[in-house]
């Protein structure tokens, strides 16, 4: 409160509080990124997220061009089995004498790929369906609501397991669904419900606004109103939902791998935790610790960043 008062006093004459909230004097773009760079914690989280993504990207590129660097050579045996963490092996070694550190790095690629692809699948299903249901209402709304209510009435883990089992090793459009593809399809196909609901509700709210009537009055078609007028107005929700959902998707991948339905041949964090389950009883804690830490940091960073994003993008919270 005190801080806020100070700010008010400090604001130069002629600049409204509102503009002050956006930090820059009213300019374009300030609507979107305004204020975000002021939050130190959010920026630190953002850096962590970028590092994770860079890592995953580099591993992809490294695999294509066959670069011989640590994370790509995760399968190499670098010492005896079950070496505890030391200066030489930061996170020790596993049963095959492979570096746990390298496996953790490589796990970032699997996890982020799964989370990213699952997000795209769920956005691609949830947003259009939510917008259609909210805009047209009536029987279209009934059908869509019925579908997602049915989906969401099945316990999530069971549903995702069922999808993963069904999708596994099927061929879709002549493309064989390997472990990782079936995992993100299973996650994406089961998790669009929340987003769909959110978008539907928001579209119902927005379509009663006068600018929609105005758009119709100057001759916009239904699809134009949905995609050009309504979706941009609710899209901040998609971004925020994405940042929050992303963590859940990483976790879902971990769960699926832990249950043996994930990627079998390459290390992911879930697979590592699954391996470590038995090792724990023998006092081998480092594989579990490494995977958990990796998940911990990305989850925390994404959560903090998602929160900050919501504060910046939601027009209701922006005016304080």
């Amino acid at each position: 409160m005190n801080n806020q008062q100070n700010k008010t006093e400090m604001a130069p004459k002629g600049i409204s509080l509102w503009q002050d909230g956006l930090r820059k004097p009213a300019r374009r773009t300030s609507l979107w990124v305004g204020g975000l760079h002021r939050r130190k914690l959010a920026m630190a989280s953002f850096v962590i997220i970028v590092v994770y993504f860079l890592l995953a990207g580099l591993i992809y590129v490294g695999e294509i061009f066959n670069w011989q660097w640590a994370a790509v050579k995760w399968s190499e045996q670098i010492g005896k089995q079950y070496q505890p963490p030391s200066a030489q092996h930061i996170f020790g070694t596993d049963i095959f004498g492979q570096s746990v550190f390298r496996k953790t790095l490589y796990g970032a690629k699997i996890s982020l790929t799964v989370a990213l692809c699952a997000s795209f699948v769920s956005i691609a299903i949830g947003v259009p369906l939510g917008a259609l249901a909210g805009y047209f209402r009536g029987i279209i709304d009934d059908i869509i609501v019925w579908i997602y209510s049915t989906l969401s009435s099945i316990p999530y883990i069971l549903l995702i397991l069922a999808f993963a089992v069904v999708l596994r090793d099927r061929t879709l459009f002549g493309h064989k669904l390997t472990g990782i593809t079936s995992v993100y399809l299973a996650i994406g196909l089961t998790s669009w419900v929340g987003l769909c609901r959110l978008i539907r509700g928001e579209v119902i709210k927005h379509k009663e606004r006068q600018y929609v009537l105005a758009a119709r009055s100057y001759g916009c078609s239904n699809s134009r109103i949905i995609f050009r007028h309504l979706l941009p107005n609710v899209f901040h929700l998609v971004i925020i939902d994405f940042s929050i959902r992303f963590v859940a998707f990483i976790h879902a991948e971990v769960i699926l791998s832990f249950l043996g339905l994930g990627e079998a041949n390459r290390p992911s964090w879930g697979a590592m935790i699954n391996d470590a389950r038995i090792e724990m009883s023998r006092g081998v804690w480092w594989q579990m610790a490494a995977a958990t830490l990796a998940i911990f940091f990305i989850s925390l960073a994404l959560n903090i960043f998602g929160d900050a994003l919501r504060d910046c993008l939601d027009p209701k919270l922006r005016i304080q």
Partner: protein
Amino acid sequence: MDNNLLLEVKNLSVHFSAEDGTVKAVQNVSFIIERGKTFALVGESGCGKSTTALAILQLVSVPTGPRGLLRKPAAGVSGSILLDGQDLTKLSGKKLRDIRGNKIALVFQEPMTSLNPVYTVGNQIAEAVKLHQRKSTRQVRRSQIPREMARPTWADAIDTLRKVSIADPEQIAKMYPHQLSGGMQQRVMIAMAVSCKPDLLIADEPTTALDVTIQAQILDLLEQLQRQTGMSILLITHDLGVVAERADNIAVMYASRIVEMADSWQLFAEPFHPYTQGLLRSLPRLGVSAPARDGQAHKRLPTIPGTVPEPLHFPTGCKFHPRCPIGHKDRRCRTVEPELREVQPGRYVACWYAPGYEKR
């Protein structure tokens, strides 16, 4: 056929089905608008003025499915709306969208909520132009005119903004609606409306949400645009002061019906319907003290007693009779509703006691 005739509304009725019954928002409304003229629709809140405007553009029923496949009308609209002899109620989909914005444009009451908050105003005006010029671009390509000259661009938006007397249109076009004042937003709305050079501009209480000083500016702007383009204006308002000088013809609406319609000059000089008389009497006038009532000289402004009837429970007979100085005792007024009749050439009124009403 009369060449000056632009829009003819015949027996327009709009019914909404609500839970407690049917709301008759508009009943048997008929009027004509001539080219280049201003027609004013006056009445209290909830009397059906805005619904009439929306009904002209076929905007009252909300589609519940694409391509009308699953359309469940939320409102029943009957009657006909002839624009240049073409019945808008018979059109659908694409053809109707070509009329909206292009032939008939709408300016709304609240400019702050009528602009999309996520686009710059220039973008929004350009969109309105783009929607209707796409076809002509195709035609132009066939006729070998350079495309740049025919394609609607940002420049068109800026031109239109200049037309509605916005200073520095290049800068304003880049702004978002929330950065503009109410008056500016309304100018932008008008710019959007006139960007396609419509034949008819429907202004639905264009000044209600604005300051009094801005109101006059906006109305002057409309008048000026009308002079430049020769469009007709359907001005909807509850403010008789607004229409006094600007409208050519006035229709007074009360409880979903037109009760009196006449030339503006005639209506102000000699109102026939008790409701119109009441409205005019209750206008405050500068420097004129209110007339004496009940034998006492008092300074209070006369009002029309009572309130507007609820649309679900309209009184029987003439809907104005409970508030009418003549009709509240009259049996016929209470039981039989008078229809709108022409009592003098060009003068219509719906009152049993209006001069000349029963002779015809």
